[in-house]
């Protein structure tokens, strides 16, 4: 089959029209932005299809943002609503802040996928369905009395009924060694090919990807490529798809880019942080959704000296990390909310020991097991207060998938410079979502060089040289990091309250007050090394400040942009550091008539701002397991603006 795209990648429109002698197609229509959602059964390969489409889209220079959404069950019963898995991709010729509120195109591989996603699809949007899957049995499984394809209920959408499965099987008729089932499994690549044609995406890197995935199974490889090409040809030769579209590259700062998910960026940030600190990275971790990919990624980086120890439980995971830190490594543990609860006592120990430790919490819906594969921000107060006693811990939150890299490095900086456990609050959306990332210059990353203690730093009661493990650096209040193996610095540390300076056991009332104050002052002092909170207020006279933290950055910024485009005035600010807050936070939040705090929890940051700064912060708190839509935040901002 001769295929009409250039080997160089991007299909030139002219080539398409010239090389096809049966159909003359118009040039692709240019679009500013597109939101596509692939939806199907858990076994239909929708995440893979989405990933590949994302990679090709990144390759043509569009800015983008993605939202994978999948069930906790690995394979729920086929064709049922609980088994529906989807992947949404937003790409544009300008900077993209969110995965998009509503799809412009929905690909529904079966009735369940249609039913689960149709409510999100605006009237007039494009709907592509696999008609082969609309059997009476499959319709009944999800409660359709009649086929929506024929009863007129889809008349408001631009419906493309495509017998995806049977065309795929037909296109693979020549593959005699493959079973019908094997052939049917390639239908996601047919859909990929069709959408690639519709949006003028190249398919070359996906071919290479398939080659590495199926290289050992030449039949399967060839069938997948053939299905992909058949999908492309189908789009091009079928009257049903009148137009192809293209989205021009987005203007982005110069540099070398890749597409990256939050979990990968976080893992790489930890490696880069350890590299810049000159420390071995030791991860102690227990598998948990949605954090496990950090363990997977780091366990593949032995070449970088990274040690990963898969522990017997969450508590052992952080214990291993803390033991490694005591030994002079950078101890890290990764988990989600339920695991953070289990690690609480050890975090308290690390506060007392004053050793570096990084705790990654990729938040998910709670309480208890909650919504393991869905996103939420409801661990903020747990991270801040979820320990016995006064146990202050710095908290850092990334705001986008690529920003996870920088947030991880910042956590390493704080942990090593201040000898303290640091919590990084990522979430399920950041973990699995992706965006283009301008690769950093390694040498330009912060210098995190650590100096271990090598000499005795005091004298004992009789005037002889002694090592004082709790003597502090006057500037940072950090204590010396004296690792085993250093002669003359033998000392004991533990969870019992320690005497100031000497670190010996102390039950003295005044000493406990002093040590408690010192630990708090040390964490508070970090504020002097972090950037002041920046406000984005283009009009300069907004009455309303929208302040957020973590992954709500994109939806808040997109909503503010829309409000401003409509003539409204609104200021925004976004917190990377939740503990301590930037030094100017109080001044900023007190400077506005209304402060609106959108959060995917019950109002944690709003509570903190109210308590800390005595302001009437208004909470926009939702826990739906999904990122905010731009639209709902626009409404919330407008409602607040009107009341201001």
């Amino acid at each position: 089959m001769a295929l009409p795209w250039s080997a160089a990648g991007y299909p030139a429109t002219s080539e398409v029209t010239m090389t096809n002698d049966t159909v003359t197609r118009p040039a692709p229509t240019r679009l500013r932005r597109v939101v596509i959602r692939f939806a199907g059964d858990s076994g239909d390969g929708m995440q893979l299809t989405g990933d590949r489409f994302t990679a090709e889209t990144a390759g043509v220079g569009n800015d983008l943002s993605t939202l994978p959404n999948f069930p906790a069950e690995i394979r729920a019963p086929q064709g049922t609503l609980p088994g529906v898995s989807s992947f949404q991709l937003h790409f544009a010729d300008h900077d993209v802040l969110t995965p998009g509120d509503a799809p412009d195109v929905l690909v529904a591989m079966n009735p369940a996928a249609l039913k689960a996603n149709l409510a999100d699809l605006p009237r007039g949007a494009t709907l592509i369905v696999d008609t082969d899957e609309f059997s009476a049995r499959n319709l009944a499984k999800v409660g359709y009395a009649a086929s929506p394809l024929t009863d007129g209920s889809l008349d408001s959408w631009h419906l493309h009924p495509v017998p995806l499965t049977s065309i795929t099987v037909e296109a693979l008729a020549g593959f005699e060694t493959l079973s019908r089932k094997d052939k049917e499994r390639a239908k996601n690549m047919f859909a990929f090919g069709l959408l690639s044609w519709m949006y003028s995406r190249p398919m070359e890197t996906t071919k290479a990807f398939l080659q590495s995935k199926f290289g050992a199974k030449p039949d399967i490889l060839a069938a997948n490529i053939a299905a992909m090409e058949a999908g492309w040809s189908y789009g091009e030769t079928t009257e049903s798809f009148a137009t192809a579209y293209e989205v021009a590259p987005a203007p982005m700062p110069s540099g070398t880019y890749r597409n990256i998910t939050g979990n990968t960026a976080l893992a790489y940030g930890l490696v880069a942080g350890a590299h810049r600190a000159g420390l071995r990275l030791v991860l102690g971790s227990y598998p948990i959704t949605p954090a496990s990919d950090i363990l997977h990624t780091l366990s593949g980086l032995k070449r970088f000296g990274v040690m990963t120890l898969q522990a017997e439980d969450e508590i052992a995971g952080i214990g291993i990390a803390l033991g490694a830190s005591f030994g002079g490594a950078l101890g890290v543990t990764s988990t989600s909310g339920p695991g953070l609860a289990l690690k609480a006592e050890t975090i308290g120990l690390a506060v007392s020991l004053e050793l570096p430790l990084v705790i990654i919490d990729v938040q998910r819906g709670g309480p208890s097991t909650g919504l393991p594969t869905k996103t939420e921000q409801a661990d903020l107060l747990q991270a801040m207060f979820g320990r016995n006693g006064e146990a202050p811990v710095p908290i850092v939150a990334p705001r986008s998938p690529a920003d996870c890299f920088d947030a991880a490095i910042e956590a390493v900086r704080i942990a090593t410079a201040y000898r303290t456990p640091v919590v990084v609050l990522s979430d399920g959306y950041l973990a699995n979502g992706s965006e283009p990332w301008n690769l950093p210059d390694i040498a330009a990353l912060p210098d995190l060089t650590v100096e271990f203690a090598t000499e005795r730093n005091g004298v004992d009661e009789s005037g002889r040289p002694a090592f004082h493990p709790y003597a502090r650096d006057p500037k940072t209040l950090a204590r010396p990091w004296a690792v085993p193996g250093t002669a003359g610095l033998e000392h004991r540390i533990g969870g019992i309250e320690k005497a100031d300076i000497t670190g010996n056991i102390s039950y003295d009332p005044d000493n406990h007050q002093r040590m408690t104050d010192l630990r708090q002052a040390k964490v508070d002092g970090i504020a002097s090394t972090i950037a002041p909170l920046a406000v984005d207020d283009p009009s300069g006279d907004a009455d309303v400040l929208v302040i957020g933290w973590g992954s709500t950055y994109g939806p808040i910024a997109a909503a503010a942009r829309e409000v401003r485009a409509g003539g409204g005035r609104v200021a925004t600010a976004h917190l990377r550091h939740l503990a301590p807050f930037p030094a100017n936070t109080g001044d900023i939040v007190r400077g506005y008539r209304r402060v609106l705090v959108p959060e995917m929890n019950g109002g944690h940051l709003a509570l903190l701002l109210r308590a800390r700064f005595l302001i009437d912060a208004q909470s926009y708190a939702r826990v739906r397991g999904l990122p905010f839509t731009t639209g709902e935040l626009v409404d919330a901002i407008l409602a607040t603006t009107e009341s201001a």
Partner: protein
Amino acid sequence: MSLTTQPRSRRETGVDPSPLGMPLPHGLASVPRLDPDGPAPTRKDYASDQEVRWCPGCGDYIILNTVQAFLPALGLRKENIVFVSGIGCSSRFPYYLDTFGMHSIHGRAPAIATGLATARPDLSVWVVTGDGDALSIGGNHLIHALRRNVNLTILLFNNRIYGLTKGQYSPTSEQGKITKSSPVGSVDTPFNPVSLALGAEATFVARSLDNDRAHLGEILKAAAAHRGTALVEIYQNCPIFNDGAFDAIKDRDQQAARLVHLVHGEPVRIGAEPSRQVLVRVADGALRFVAEAEAAGAGEVVVHDAHADDPSQQFALSRLDGAGMTQVPMGIFRQVERPTYDDGVRAQIDAAVTTAGGPADDADLHALLAGKDTWTVE
């Protein structure tokens, strides 16, 4: 009391051969040693300046003295020795030793020690724990340290009671025990720590008694030499809440009739001449002590094999003792060589770094970050 280890020669091999005579590394092979020509450390060098605060008469004092006296014999630099403990009376141990130490949280010492020992092959890592710490709240970490075979030595002080919380029954307290939390008797079935360790794939399991310093010293020596997790259960008297728990086997008159000294390669015996008995496997497979003179006719004499890979017989020996402490095995139950977890973790990293031609530099890190799909914006 017989020694349970075989004589070793450093002169021949440069490193201590394992007690099995196999060419596997000594437990302390990667830990820096003191200059043999330098001043020899003494017990005093290992005592910290902290006042020891156990109750008068506590068995922990004798264990501490034994350990302080034993450590110089290791010939290590003391800055390369680390004691990690959990919570409980025994877990105050690290404060009294002038080495590096961490008094951590309840039950978690094996996990913390695992991270430390894996990250630092140049350290001799010891865990000090008790029956509540190791077998109740920390049971999970204990069994996983044992199955992984991390290179560390665990000293489990078993006094069969919760001391620091003032006298509740522990996971090794006998059924029916009257304590503050079991006023009409505990209904819990106790753990046998040695049986538990053998079931958890432990490679070195031994038992000793707090007041038998010579025996404990020998066991500590063998445990330190073992590469992998060594578990040493030490019966320890709590004079306040469980006083006399081990009197039956400490009493000089009764001791001989109740203790079974396990010696690798020797028949398993109990009692002193002329009433000495030997363990035989009788027709139905059960183990029974019979008079030595009658052994030949009673069945197959059981010869202790601490090096047997199959732990069945070692396990059977751990079950000789019932609640009555009438036949209590002491010594090394199991001592086998198996690759250690921490050596394995480090070997994978070393292999990856060697294959890549050396430690990663900025360029390698940049290549990692870039991945396979990049594009350039001018």
